[in-house]
Structure formats: C-alpha cells, structure tokens
C-alpha cells in the first residue's frame, strides 16, 4: 500500500541519529516549558528559530514540532499538581485533575493524562498521514481566488473563536495584516511603511513580532499579577492507573481523540477549544454528571487526549494549504519559510522527506514523551519549585540573544521591545495577540492573491463568488460570523432597549 511505503520512508528519515536526537531535545524542551507556567510554546519556538538556521529543514521542523506537542504533555502535570495550567490548553485538566490530586490520586491522574495523550497522539498522527495527501492534491488545483477566500476563512475562524470581543479581534487582524505589509511590495519591490528606517527595508521578521507579543508582553502581564502558587508535590506514587481506571477511560479517550482531531484542523480551533469541547461532551454522556469537578477520571482523560490530538492535526492545514491556524503554527510557517520551503500543497510532492519524516517523528516523539512523563515525572515536579522570579530574567536573556542573532543586529531587540509594550497595552484593553500574529503572517499572501485574482478577472470582484470553492469558503466564513454575531446582536438590542 502507498501509505505504508510512505510511512516506512518517513520512519527511515526520522530514526537517523541526528533526527532522533533533535526530536528528543524538542520533546524534552516542550515538556519543560509545558510544565513551567508563564512560558508557552509560541515564545519558545520564537526563541529557538534563530538557532535552527544551521540545521536541515527536516531536522529543525522535527525539533520545533516536538516542542509544540511536548508542551501539551507537560502542561497537564502542572494542571494536576498545582491547579494552574502549565499551558493554556490544559485549563480544563485543572478541574478534575487537581481534585484527583487532592484525593491522593495524583499518580493515577498523571498516568491517565500521559496514556490518554499517547493514544490520541498515535491516532492523530495516522489521521494526518491519511488525510493530508488527498487534501493537498485538491489544494494543488487552487488558484488565486481560492487562496484568497481560504485565507479570509482562516482569519475569520481565528477571530470568531478568539475568546475576546469580535470587534477587537477584527481590529487586531487588520492591524496585523497592515504590519505584515511593512517592507518591499512583492510585485514591484517598492517599499511601504518603512519611513526611511533602513532596518525595516526587508520587512519585520515573524520572530520579532512573536517574541514581543508572546514572550515580553506575557512576562510583563505575569509580573503584574504577582506570584501565588500552592504546589501539590508531596506524595506522587502509583503512576500506573488500575485496570478499572483503564477500562473507564477507553471510551473517553476515543471520543476526545475524535473531537480533538476534528477541531485541530479548524482555523482558530486547536488544542484549547478541543479540550473544552471534549470535557463538555464527557459531562453530557456521563450517567452521573455531578462527579465532574470532584475528580472524575474521564474529565482528565478526554481533554488530555483531545488537546494532544488537536496539536497533531493542526499540522494538516499548515502542511497541505500553507494556512496556519494558531500563533504556534504561524511560527512553524515562519520556520519553513526561513528554511526556504514554501508551505502549501507542493510540500508533499516537492519535499516528501520533510513531510513523511515529520509525521513519523511525531509518533516517535509521542512514545518518547510517555517515557519522559511517567518514569521521569519526579524531575518535572522538582522543576515546579523553581520560582518565576528566577525564570523570567533567563527567558529575557535567551530572547535577546536569539533576536540579535536573527540578522546580526540589535535593531530587532528594540523592535521586539516595542511589540512587547504594544502587546501589553493592547492586552490591558482586552485585545488578544493571536489574531494579530495570524494577520501578520497572512498579510502578504492575502494581498498577493487578491491582486492576482483581480488581474485575471480584469477587476471584477465577482470572481470570488462565481468560483465554486472560493464561494463555498466565503459562505462558510459568513456563516461562522453569523453564528457568533446573531446572539450577540440580539443581546445588544435587549440591553439597549432596557436602557431606553
């Protein structure tokens, strides 16, 4: 079978000593930053990107991907032991995981989280291997109108599913699109928004934006809240769940995997939404919903399966369409571009080594993570006792060195500080950074495809609704918007009428 040959080829690439080493390094670092609250995968990817220039594209992407899904494992440890999500996507795990820990079942909770994540990760890897090739062959026939509508759909998803106000997310997307255009115009090479500043003549690097928004601004926001932690690290034993536990979690893990795989593909979806949805579903199907929040084992297994599955399948739109669905995926796209790979449907045909090697490495990485997270759990628990006040100066130092080495200039450090300040102020105003970063990364592509589509149609904008695929994508965008705005408008009207 084709799939088997491809996967075998992928494994032959992923198991070279170099790739295995970097895969291990990636998942270990991912677990580390997953365990530590206050630093996320987006900031870590931004920090490591400049150091990957010397690696081959496959090796660097294997490592960067490992950081991302590794952080999903690590995040649950923190959620269970100290009732704080180590990673945003393990928020739900705090509900029942911490309760299990308080009832002396921390070991079982950690074990279930790791086993559920591994099962989900293995299935989701297969989902990527099965669904990415057909999707990418469909995408090969896409022209400029289809790509334009696809990007609109992606940005709309990121806006609609962002947690804040829709209007503010729209503002952030537009702002990101505009900042993405700084530098030379792709068609004419003419400079835009550079104001005579020579360091802007090549545009702004995605690492600069991501470090400012996701590392610097986040540190400022964390410091403002102050540090209050109650660690639950005393007695963690009995990591292997009982047979009864295992029997109980089979169905929740399968449901979580299905939900996670599906939501991971959607723009703006990803692991966070997947884990929430999985938890809600478990609560609905349980015979006794009151157990949830009191240490229900299903409430740990399903969301953990879902967030890991979602982390894997969010690679599908990136690898087949070149569309990132989250801030972390935007950085993966940045990494591919910097390595000279044009993300999109041609990745599969032009760089099959990269595609299949990465997929195989995901399975290997998941296996490594189970080992890292079960027998070695003691090390990660000890890490939780490192106070944040010793962490953030170290993060700042690594960020600064990474920024300096991007282009061998300190301008990027200053620019990231500006993004950090702007990010913090916008955070104060309830504006999220993820829609901005997606707009930033998609800005040039959106403009290019809009211009190309309109050249071909001689300026007739109806080309976007007469082409069936493009029309369907735009219709889906409008439907998504209507679902969210509908109730909001109604609520707003009642509020206004109540006032009047």
């Amino acid at each position, binding site marked *: 079978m084709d799939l088997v040959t491809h996967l075998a080829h992928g494994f032959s690439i992923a198991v070279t000593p170099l790739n295995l080493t970097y895969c291990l390094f990636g998942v270990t670092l991912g677990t580390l930053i997953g365990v530590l609250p206050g630093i996320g995968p987006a900031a870590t990817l931004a920090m490591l990107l400049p*150091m990957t220039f*010397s690696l081959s594209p496959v090796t660097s992407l294997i490592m960067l991907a490992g950081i991302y899904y590794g952080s999903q494992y690590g995040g649950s440890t923190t959620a269970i032991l100290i009732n704080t999500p180590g990673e945003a996507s393990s928020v739900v795990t705090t509900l029942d995981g911490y309760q299990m820990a308080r009832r002396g079942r921390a070991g079982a909770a950690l074990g279930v989280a790791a086993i559920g994540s591994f099962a989900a990760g293995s299935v989701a890897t297969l989902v990527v291997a099965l669904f990415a090739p057909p999707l990418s062959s469909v995408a090969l026939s896409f022209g400029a109108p289809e790509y334009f509508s696809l990007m609109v759909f992606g940005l709309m998803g990121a806006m609609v599913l962002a947690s804040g*106000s829709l*209007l*503010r997310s*729209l*503002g952030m997307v*537009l*702002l990101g*699109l*505009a900042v993405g*255009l700084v530098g030379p115009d792709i*068609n*004419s090479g003419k400079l*835009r*928004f550079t104001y005579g500043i020579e360091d802007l003549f090549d545009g702004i690097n995605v690492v600069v934006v991501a470090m400012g928004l996701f590392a*610097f601004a986040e*540190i*400022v*926001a964390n*410091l*403002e809240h*102050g*540090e209050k932690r109650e660690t639950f690290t005393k007695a963690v034993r009995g990591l292997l769940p009982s047979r009864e536990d295992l029997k109980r979690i089979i169905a929740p893990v399968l449901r979580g995997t299905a939900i996670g795989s599906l939501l991971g593909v959607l723009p703006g979806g990803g692991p966070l939404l997947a884990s929430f949805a999985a938890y809600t579903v478990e609560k609905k199907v349980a015979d006794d919903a009151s157990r949830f929040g009191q240490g229900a084992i299903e409430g740990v297994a399903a969301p953990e399966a879902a967030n890991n599955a979602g982390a894997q399948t969010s690679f599908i739109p990136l690898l087949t369409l070149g569309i990132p669905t989250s801030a972390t995926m935007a950085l993966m796209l940045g990494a591919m571009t910097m390595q000279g790979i044009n993300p999109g449907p041609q990745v599969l045909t032009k760089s099959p080594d990269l595609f299949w090697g990465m997929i195989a490495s995901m399975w290997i990485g998941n296996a490594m993570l189970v080992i890292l997270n079960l027998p070695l759990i003691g090390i990660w628990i000890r890490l939780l006792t490192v106070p944040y*006040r*010793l962490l*953030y*100066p*170290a993060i*700042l*130092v690594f*960020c*600064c*060195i990474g920024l*300096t*080495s991007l282009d*061998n200039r*300190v301008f990027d*450090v200053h620019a*990231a*500080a500006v993004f*950090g*300040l702007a990010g*913090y*102020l*916008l955070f*104060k*105003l*309830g*504006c999220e950074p993820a829609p901005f970063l997606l707009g930033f990364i998609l800005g040039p592509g959106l403009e290019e495809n*809009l*211009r190309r589509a*309109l*050249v071909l*149609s001689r*300026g007739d*904008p109806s080309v976007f609704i007469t082409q069936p695929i493009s029309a369907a994508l735009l219709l889906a965008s409008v439907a998504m918007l209507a679902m969210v705005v509908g109730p909001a408008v109604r609520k*707003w009207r009642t*509020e206004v009428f109540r*006032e009047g």
Partner: protein
Amino acid sequence: MVKAPQDFWSGLAFLGAGLFISISAWGYPAGTAARMSHGYVPMLLGYALCAVGAASVVRSFLVHGAPVSRIALRPMLPLAAVIAFALLLHPAGLVVATFALIVISVMAADRFRPLDILILSALLIPFNWIIFVRALGLPLPLLPWG
C-alpha cells in the same frame, strides 16, 4: 458617558492606527482594482481599521463592558532591561549587557532580592559564553570592544 472603557480605548487605538496607515498609504500610488499598485491594499486596510475603531468607540457609549485596570510601571521594567541589553551589547560586550539585563529585570519582582542577581549572573553568563559564543559560534562581542 463611556460605558465600556476597554471598547472605548481600543477603539481609539484602532482609529489612530487606521488614520496613520491611511495617511501613509496616500503617499503610495493606488492603481485600479484590475491593476492594483502597492498603495491599494494598505489604503483599504487603513479605512477598514478606521471603521472598526469608530464602531468600537460608538459601541462603548451604548453597551456596558469591562473597565481598564490600572497600568503599572514596575512590571514594565523587563522591557527597559531588554533595551539596555541592546544598547550595551556592541560597546560593552555580552557579559556587561547580560549583567545589566539581569539587574534591571530583577528589580521588576515584588521586592528587591540582591541574591537573585548573583544566582542568575553566575548561571547565565557562563552559559551564554559556552553555548552561544563557543558552541554555536554566534558573532557576539564578549568583552568591551572585544
């Protein structure tokens, strides 16, 4: 009366950015829809941002929303620390720049702990030298005018 301060101030920010972008875009040729020049899309984005900002400001007078919490200055010290690093790196070298970054960023914590400066310097400065300068060979000056 402003009922939703977050909407009001973010609206003003978007409006300001939108105006700035539109005015900049007027300096670039726009072309026509069929033959867009490099000013067309920036102009559209500027106008759209103005519209979003205006809508947000109008909304802030109609619907109740979240307040804006006070902006504190001490948590912003890490940004100053980063800028100090950038300013010091080339004249004074990596060791001095890292030390300055550590000193300023440690002052952002809830109370000042001199011991933290010692611990961090003792760990990070040798680490930077071994990993970044020696192992990865990044072209960073180590000591003043080095």
